[in-house]
């Protein structure tokens, strides 16, 4: 089945699959941010006067939670557009 495929096409296809797999990491970040938002809503419900402080902490926490999603995005972008694996041919 693989006989008609050139080496370059094979590597490009595998890179695309790898980029797709890398983006699964977005799952963790999304889950964490959802939980954090829910907790922040609870905290604001309990202490409405601390809303500013809670929101600021939440946004900062988002930024740090997002990091692994961004890493996977960078890996996917590199795989798709820079194609480092093609250089190994």
């Amino acid at each position: 089945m693989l006989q008609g495929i050139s080496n370059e096409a094979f590597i490009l296809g595998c890179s695309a699959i790898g980029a797709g797999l890398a983006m699964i990491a977005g799952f963790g970040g999304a889950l964490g941010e959802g939980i954090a938002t829910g907790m922040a809503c609870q905290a604001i419900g309990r202490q409405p006067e601390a809303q500013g402080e809670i929101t600021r902490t939440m946004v900062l926490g988002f930024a740090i939670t997002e990091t692994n999603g961004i890493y996977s995005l960078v890996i996917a972008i590199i795989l798709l557009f820079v194609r480092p694996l093609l250089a190994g041919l």
Partner: protein
Amino acid sequence: MEIAVIYNGNEFIIPNTTISAIIIAIFLIIVAVIVSLKIKKAKAEEAPSGFLNVIELLVETMDNMVKSNMGEKNMSFSPFILTLMVFIAACNLSGLFGLTPPTSDFGFIFMVALIVFIIAQINHMKSIGIPKYLKGFTEPYALMTPLNIISELSNPISMSFRVFGNILSGGLVTTLLYTALGNFSPLIAPLHIYLDIFVGLLQAFVFVMLTMVSINTGEN
């Protein structure tokens, strides 16, 4: 609008992200000069008018933020941090005006993060002294030293990747949608409100927050 420069027979290409960074810097310098001229003309006993009011609000908010995050004695960092925030926000928003956002170039934002990293390290050394600073790397065990050094070095990388990834992905998503929708592409114009304005301002804010945290750690 890439520019090729020939120097000593070698050809260098100046990428358009660098050119837009220079344009933004010149624009911000002009704005700063205008603001300082206006401040000199303004009278202290009168309430500031429109434009000056916004600037005053910005400076006051940043002062309060620095005070609550870094304490009274680090107030001298406030101008630097406000400059950083305005510059990164302007860079992120420049995509709306047809420039290539400089923050979508990893080299650019990594240099900004490196400046912050070096300032943070020098500030730690100054505040607790070099022997204590070096000893901080061997906490809690001497075995942890390589891990501590790596975690310190990964700071600028993660800070710059965050802004870079967000801005680049925003640009990629809008480009993909514009290509996919063809004649219907004006429909997705509202998406710029989220991808360019909201994400751009939020990332500038987050970068500045992390700057304050990284400059402040290690001293109480």
